[in-house]
């Protein structure tokens, strides 16, 4: 099975809109999925500037899927979908 890659945006906008809390995903994902899912950060995913409605931060990508207003639950749901 291919690995799932999760990227958390650590840019200014996302960070103040909540991605600082999303860093807990590192531990949660490790516990839940082991090595099947890899979590990493990104200096900026550039969605805030390119999206016409930029108030949808924080952004997280799970493989190619972009999650707006990401929360830990939303990200975990998306990972489950990718793995199923």
């Amino acid at each position, binding site marked *: 099975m291919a690995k799932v890659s999760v990227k958390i945006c650590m840019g200014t906008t996302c*960070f*103040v*809109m909540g991605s600082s809390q999303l860093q807990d*995903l590192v531990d949660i994902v490790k516990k839940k999925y082991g090595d099947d899912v890899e979590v*990493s*950060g990104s200096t*900026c995913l550039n969605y805030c*500037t390119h999206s016409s409605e930029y108030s949808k931060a924080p952004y997280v990508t799970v493989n190619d899927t972009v999650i707006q207003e990401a929360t830990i639950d939303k990200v975990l749901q998306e990972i489950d979908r990718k793995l199923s």
Partner: protein
Amino acid sequence: MFIDIYCTQEKKYNQNTYGDYFVSKRDPETDRLLAVLSDGLGSGIKANILASMTATMLLKFIEADSDVRKACEIMMNSLPVCQKRKISYSTFSVINCNSEGVTKIVEEGNPQFLWIRGNEVLEPDCDIITSETFKNRKMHVYRIKLKEGDRLIFCSDGVTQSGLGTDKFKLGLRRKGLIDAVLHKLKEDIFISSRDLSKFIVEFACSLEPDRKAKDDISAVCIHCRTPRKSMVFTGPPYHMEKDNYYANVFKDFEGKKAISGGTTANLISRELNIPIETPVTRNIGKLPSVSYMEGVDLVTEGILTLTKAYEYLEDEDEMQDDAAGELVKFLLESDCIIFMVGAKLNQAHYDPNLPIEIEIRKNIIKKIAKVLEDKYVKKVTIQFM
């Protein structure tokens, strides 16, 4: 040649303000570094007023190239007279040097400065000028030429008299003791910065006092001549996107230490120069995103939040933490000449009123940082907008 200067001070025990005063100014137009250290009569507020008046006035005078004797007469006549002692008094050391090393020093009342070259203390000749109105006040005027690697150390009598009356130093540390301590420290670390050396001297002087309670105000000013350590901080994308590649290459070709401050900016450099970014998701220290890594770049941080925090740390060093902004401050303080390359492009997302905290405009925060680096830390700062 770059002149690295720093002053560290400690106030007399139980006083709420410093009785010594230090001011310095780098004048890029005339390529001069001007500095004055003054020790006011007594301690606390009174001494502080005398010392700050002395230092501020003298700085203005040397800035205007006034005759030193005249300047000192005017200054001494303007100081308020102490009600108890019926005299007005404050000592001073005036330093005026350029990047060629041509230096003029005028001292009155402070312990004689140390001029250290290699492992030796040099003893330069001086002219003595006696004040017309105050016969007991003699100004020592030195004209010296500094070479690369030379150090000058100025201090208030709080340093040379530290430990006075203790068994080990019945007469205090004195000049001899200070020379021994400084030479010993330089043997340990020949490249020590002026900042660390002045901190060492003040710390050492305090350690000689019983219970570490300073009996007098203690100040040490260190000067070090050396090749400048250059650094560049690249922050914000250029206004015209087609210039991205050009500026990324300016960054690449810069000789010195390099930092990037900004997520989008880091992506831009990564894209143009084809260097991958590694962003570890570790629990960040404090409230800032942690640093990222790029090959060939000394520091990569988030932008506005980190810069804003770094500005706060520069204003108040006691607040400094070991987070990304702390690293940026360390990066800046370890440099002598700093170039800020500031992208003028706006990030629309930062102006979203839904953002929970106020986000500064990049240009403004850089201007503030530049000002504090110049005024408080006497760095050479250049800002280039792109």
